[in-house]
Each structure stands twice: as C-alpha cells, then as structure tokens.
C-alpha cells in the first residue's frame, strides 16, 4: 500500500498508551444530570418536558422545528428537577433540562424512536450529530444538495488528536457496529465505495475492522500525522481530491462521518436507539485514566471523580483533544454528544499562557506544517494589525483551525488565535 499523505502536519507526542488498552466501562449515573438543550451546531432545542415530569430513558425532552438541528433525549429514567441553564464546555450558558435519575437504572433498555420508512428521519429522530467534536446534525450531512452525487463514504477513525482513544476502543471492541454503520450510510447515500480510515498507530483496530468488514468495505491505514482526521486532509489522503475553495467537501463526491457517528446511525436505524450516551476518554493527570461510556449530562467533575480525581498540578482541563478542544474554566459542565475526551494536562505539558509580544523569527515552521498551504505567520501579523482585507486576500478563511502553526512556533506566538480573529473579521465582511 502506498503511503497516502497530505501536505504539512505535525507529530505531537501521542500520549495514547495510558488509555489505548483500557476497555470501555460504564461510568456510574450521577445523582444529577444536566442535559443541555443545545448540543449541536444549529438551532437550539426548546424543552418539551416540565419541572416534576417523569421521563424515561430515550424519551424526547427537547426539540425544535428547524432544518439544522437535532432533538435531545433523556439519557436516564428519572424526574425533571428543573428547566434551567448550564455552562457548557465552550463557555456559553445554554438552556438545560436537569434530571434526577432513578436510583435503579436499566441502561440496556430505552424508549425507541418513532418508526419511519425514511432513514434520514430516523437519524434525525435519534438526535444523531457528528460525534468527532463538530456536532453537525448528521441528517443534514446525509442529505447532500441536489445535483451533488456522493460516490464514496468515508468513516473517519483516524483519531489524530493526542491522548484520545475513544474511537480506537470503539473500533476495536465493536468493529461489527462500525461496519453496520458503514453499510447503513452506503445504503442511504447510494455510494459505490466505503472506506473506513484510521491512522496506522491502531493496528489492532484495523485488524478487527478487516475481520468484521463485509462486501467491499475497505479499511485503510494512513500515516499517523496530525491533522490526518481533518475532513479535507482525510479526503485528500484517500482520494487525492482537494475540496475546492469555498465548496462543501461533498463537492469531491465524498461524505465523511466519524466512526462513532456511524455506530449511532446504525443504532438508530436498526434498533431505534436514540443518542443518549457516548464513549469518553478520560486521561492525562487523573488517577485512573480510561475509556468510559457516559450518559449525556454527566458533569465533567463527576466523571473526573469517577476516574480517581485529578493528580498533581493540573494546568488545563480540556474537553476534546489538546489540539482543538476547549480548556474548561469550570468542571461543572456536562458531557455532551460531541465530548470525545476529558484531558487533564499537567504543568509542563500544557502550552504556556499566550502572550502577543513575541517576535516572529521567520523560521518557516508554520507554513511548512500548515495542511492548507497557508502562511500563518503573515495571517497572524495582518490580523494583529487589523488588516482584514490583506488577511482575506491571503485566504485566511481557508484556515481549518487545526492549530499546527501555534504548536510548532518556537516563540509561541498565538498564531491560531490571531488567525481566528482575522478569519471571523474576513467572514463577517464577506457576508455583508
């Protein structure tokens, strides 16, 4: 097999050893669940239950009539304690249903979604969103724009972020479910080709998938290099097609879904199971790092406590991976459909606090690692000087925010942060 590659990229230390061998275990249902009503990109849900209501596991508790949205289900059987608000990992305060779970839970059973002949309706009814972190409603992605033919479905099991192993464990422990997801998506889309892609640091998962793969489903191992799992880079590595500037990835005829999302889609279609829990890698400076199956709405603090608590001096606690995740200001935020990991970064491992007075020494590392062929040093300089048009001219909006530039910068300039500012300014100007 040829070594498929994309331009640029970095090799941060993987730090996956401490959890890659940890089988997925259920985390206990806490005494109180905080289920946000906005767990996806798009319109937030409105609650459809009230204080004091009895809810069953799988029952819809929030929904909204909007194209880009996904309903929210109760992850447990219990009682609605309150319709309130909660902080979420991103730092926003959103509406939430607070549930007091029954003392005895049967996590094997659930209220199935309303049956439908339309598989896309089922996926929506099950509340499936992109579980790799983007949380884009899957139904929308499964409904390509008219005239756009999808011939290839790619399941993304790269898990290129350091520390995270939740997708690795899923592929290793439930390869047949991943394959089922691939088959279901292929049926829905009418694609000719299905590729399950993962980085070559998970040979056991690749072997498990190959053993489970049926009828022409390809399993492809790609070189371990961040950001191999970024959608555009993944499509390029597999198909040698570039997503054209300003177009949807579907323009290449490829549709990418995370492996956990694929399993959620298969669950929705085959057993009517709504998305109410997910695998979360809890790792870094915690006493018992591992992979836990967590009901949505479990607070990060509960989960960390279950993992034995933080150990030593922890500088940042990250929701997601350390390259693209969010640093938590408070641990009293809930696990949501997009929470792939909780990473406690000890002192010395976390990036230094950003300062904006560091000079660029023109070492050339950032343009060399940018997977989009951008020149981060210059974009950051333009953004710092509020030269929005100049930044736009140099394609600032093509930045995928992978963070490879900031990662390699020897003077620790906050390149990505400056570029984000430039990008949002360029985008809002473009929208006018």
């Amino acid at each position: 097999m040829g070594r498929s590659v994309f331009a640029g990229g970095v090799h941060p230390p993987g730090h996956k050893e401490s959890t890659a061998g940890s089988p997925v275990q259920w985390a206990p249902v806490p005494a109180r669940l905080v289920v946000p009503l906005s767990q996806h990109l798009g319109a937030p849900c409105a609650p459809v239950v009230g204080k004091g209501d009895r809810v069953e596991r799988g029952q819809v508790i929030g929904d909204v009539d909007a194209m880009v949205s996904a309903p929210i289900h109760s992850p447990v059987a219990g009682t609605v304690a309150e319709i309130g608000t909660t902080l979420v990992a991103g730092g926003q305060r959103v509406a939430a249903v607070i549930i007091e779970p029954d003392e005895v839970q049967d996590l094997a059973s659930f209220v199935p979604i309303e049956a439908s002949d339309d598989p896309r309706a089922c996926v929506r009814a099950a509340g499936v969103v992109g579980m790799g972190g983007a949380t884009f409603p899957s139904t929308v992605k499964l409904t390509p724009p008219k005239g756009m033919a999808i011939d290839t479905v790619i399941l993304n099991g790269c898990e290129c972020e350091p520390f995270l192993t939740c997708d690795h464990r899923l592929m290793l422990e439930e390869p047949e479910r991943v394959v089922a997801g691939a088959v279901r998506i292929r049926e829905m889309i009418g694609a000719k080709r299905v590729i399950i892609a993962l980085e070559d640091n998970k040979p056991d998962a690749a072997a498990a998938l190959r053993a489970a793969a049926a009828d022409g489903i390809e399993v492809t191992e790609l070189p371990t290099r961040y950001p191999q799992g970024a959608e555009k880079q993944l499509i390029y590595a597999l198909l040698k097609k570039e997503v054209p500037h300003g177009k949807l990835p579907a323009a290449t005829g490829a549709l990418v879904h995370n492996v956990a999302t694929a399993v959620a889609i298969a669950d929705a279609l085959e057993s009517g199971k709504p998305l109410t829990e997910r695998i979360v890698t809890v790792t870094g400076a915690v006493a018992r790092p591992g992979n836990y199956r967590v009901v949505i709405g479990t607070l990060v603090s509960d989960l960390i406590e279950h993992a034995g608590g933080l150990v030593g001096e922890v500088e940042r606690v990250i929701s997601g991976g350390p390259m693209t995740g969010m640093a938590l200001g408070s641990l009293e935020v809930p696990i949501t459909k997009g929470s792939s990991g909780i990473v406690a970064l000890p002192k010395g491992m976390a990036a230094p606090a950003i300062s904006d007075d560091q000079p660029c020494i023109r070492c050339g590392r950032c343009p060399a690692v940018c997977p989009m062929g951008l020149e981060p040093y210059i974009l950051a300089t333009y953004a710092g000087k509020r030269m929005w048009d100049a930044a736009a001219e140099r394609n600032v909006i093509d930045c995928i925010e992978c963070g490879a530039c900031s990662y390699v910068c020897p003077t620790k300039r906050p390149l990505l942060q400056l570029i984000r500012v430039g990008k949002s300014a360029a985008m809002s100007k473009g929208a006018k």
Partner: protein
Amino acid sequence: MSKSVNGSDRIVGPSPHIASSATCTGIMLWVVAALTPAALWAVVNMGLVAVQLLVVTIGVALGTEWAVNSISRKPQTLLDGSALVTGLLLAMSLPPRTPWWMAAIGAFVAIWLGKLLFGGLGHNLFNPALVGRAFVTLSWGGVLAGVQNRGWFATLADVSAEGLDTVSGATRLAVAAADRAASGGYGFDLAAQYQPLLLKNLEGSLGEISAGLLILGGLVLIVKGIIDWRIPAGYIGTMGLVSWAFGSDPIFHVLAGGVMLGAFFMATDYVSSPMSKKGRLIYGIGCGLFNALGRFIGPMPESTTFAILFMNGLAPLIDRLTRPRVFGVVKTDA
C-alpha cells in the same frame, strides 16, 4: 487569559493547548553547539588569539544588546540567544589576529545596525553577523586579508601603514585568485588542498580552519530539523557547478574560503532567508552563484559576505514569488 473560577491555578486559553518543545533560545543554542567543534578546534590551533577574538565579539554583541535595550527601555532580549549566535558567527568569520577594536566595532555594528535598528530579532532584513563583517571588511579590507604581524594590538596607524601587505597572511584562495589573474592557471595543486581545508588550515578566518567540522555541525542542524537542507545544498551545489564551469576545481572551491560557514550557518539565518521550501532552494542557489561569480570575476578573492547579503535583500521578493499554493485553490496566474 483568566484563572479558573473555582480557585485552582488552571488556565483557560484558546487551542491548541499543547506546544512543541522548540523554543527560540533552544534553536540558538543548537546553532552554538553546532559551531562549537569548529570554534574549539580554532582555539586549539590558534591559541590565545582565537580566544581573545571570541571573547571580544561575543562580549560586545551581548553588551550592545543589553545596553541598547536598556537605553531604549525595551524588554531585555539577551536570553533569546540570538546575540550570542551573532557574536560567535562574527568571530568565526574574522581572521584570528583581527585587531581587538576592529572586532569590537564589528560586533557593535552587527547588533546595533544589523539588528536592533531594524526593530530587533525577527525584523532585520540582513544577517547581523554579516552586516558587522561587511562593515569591518569595507572599512579595513586590506587589513583583514593581510596584516597579521601585529594583530591583536595593532592600532589604526599600524593598519594604515601595513594595510596593503597582502603577502604575509594570504589565504590559498587569494593565492589562487592571484595566480588565475596572472596566468589563468594555478601555481599549486588544488586537489592537494582538500585535506588541509577539511581538517586543518591555518590561513584565513577562524571558520576556515576546518571545513570538515563546519560540515559536521551543519549536518547536525539539518538532522535536528533546525536548518533546511535546501539552502546549503543549493549554495554548495551551485558553488561547485559554477567553479567547474569556470574550469576550476569545484571541490577546492567549496572547501576554501567562507563557503561552508556561509552555506550552513550564515545563509540559513531564519530572519534573513526566505520562508518557503522552494524559496530556500532558489535563495541557496543564488548565494552560491554570486559567491562563485564574486570569486571568479569579482575584485576580491572571496565574496561570501556580499553574496549572502545580496540574497538577504532578495529574500522578501523570493518569498513573494514562491508563495505556497493554498489547498483547494486552483492557481490562476494573472
């Protein structure tokens, strides 16, 4: 940046939350380490004069950086390591018996005019060490090539009196150039010079004593990912090729003079060289071309300094012409 609300020392900040271990100081110290074998070998062979030169250039470079920052009330930048590298590089580019005041002026000019006046590290258009060396060369050029007799404590008057004496300390390169000018041939066997040039050649600057140790240091920097191989490869390759085209011995010409110090340590200065891979190759080729042309048709036996400074000036243009192609954007050359 804010502290966590629940009383811990946790930091909230934008992603990415991890950083590579590369630091500016670390990079500079690797460059120093890579130059150390050649510098030590110079000290072993030249003794005290080499030590004196190193101490003066490095001391004045660091002192100038500290003093100018202090006077202009800027944050101190000594710890970034760049002044140390500049001082060391300047010493390596000068003959060991360079009068002390000349070395000191060179170091001062390198740091002040070459770097700080432009706005400090990252803003200088030209390699600071070469700016310092160019200043010294242009001011007292004959001295550098020739006067070695009084050396360290020579005064300006001594220098003026002996400035045209180019015989006592002439390098192989100068002899070769003189021979070529006189007869079109060479009065000595160039191939017989390979070994001394690589290992132990006591003519010329500190950095000419052992091309071999400079190559070794340069390779370490390439392997460590600190410098891009394209610059020295383009430089040395072109230097050899053009020498060959001029009917001379390419191996002699890449080993003699300032080529190895220039190709591995001077031209690769981050700030004054292009950013893109393609740009770096073009830039390296340009350095080699002008260095060789300077040797064969220029007025001076060696031209490393001015070849690299000239290409420094072209680096922004090269960057402009070699912008990377943005992923997903089809190039429409207007």
